[in-house]
């Protein structure tokens, strides 16, 4: 599941935000916070889980969701990789311009 697809949908970002604020929430608690159906929430949670952005565990009769930091680390790792590449590129552009 594409992580970028997963975070492109506004409800899914709001779900992540709620999980980040509250630490963990059951599917039922998430449904209560939104004006959309339980089945829509369930689909969104499925996408987030498959993208590796949330964890789920069974506690008694409930499924409890929380943020999976490792999923976000992948986004961050890629951004850092590109940032370093640009740092070096812009330094080399400076060298080139000095020689002109």
């Amino acid at each position, binding site marked *: 599941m594409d992580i970028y697809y997963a975070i492109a949908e506004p409800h899914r970002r709001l779900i992540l935000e709620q999980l*980040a604020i509250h630490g963990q929430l059951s599917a039922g608690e998430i449904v209560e916070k939104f004006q959309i159906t339980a089945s829509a929430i369930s689909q969104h949670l499925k996408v987030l889980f498959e993208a590796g952005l949330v964890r789920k565990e069974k506690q008694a009769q409930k499924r409890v969701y929380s943020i999976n930091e490792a999923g976000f680390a992948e*986004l961050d*790792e890629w951004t850092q990789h590109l940032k370093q590449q640009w740092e070096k590129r812009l330094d080399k*552009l*400076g*060298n080139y311009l000095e020689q*002109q």
Partner: protein
Amino acid sequence: MAKVAITREYTAAIEKVWEALTTPEIIMKFWAPPGMETVAATIDKLEPGGVFRYSMKSPEGFQQWVKCTYEEVIPPTKLSFMETITDEEGNPVPPSHFGMPGDEIKHHLTELVLEQDGNTTKLTMYMDYGDEQSNQYAQGGWKGMLENLDTVLE
């Protein structure tokens, strides 16, 4: 992790910096990071929708292709493009295809903004990940939300 910005100041006229960023022969000289070599750079049209492609090769012989589709071309002050890693034929591939982190196909928007101040030109590079759809959502403030997430996750 939301939006990255890098700034440099060059002792050069803004037109020179613009020329360097938009001329394939000059791009070949500085685009690849040290240790890698830029082995190809082409621009079909320097206008929105135009495509800039480049290829870099590592000493181990890994060759990576990147396709950039221009979104804004405003000489000599602003250049932005959507960047995607591709194979040699131009088909999008995940970074892992070239031994880099990430198993998913990635698109990200890069913006280069130039400002002249006396004999110096300030260049700011902004980078934002996401695809066109998520960049549209960006107007709705999802960057702010991800920044909040950062704070919470730290």
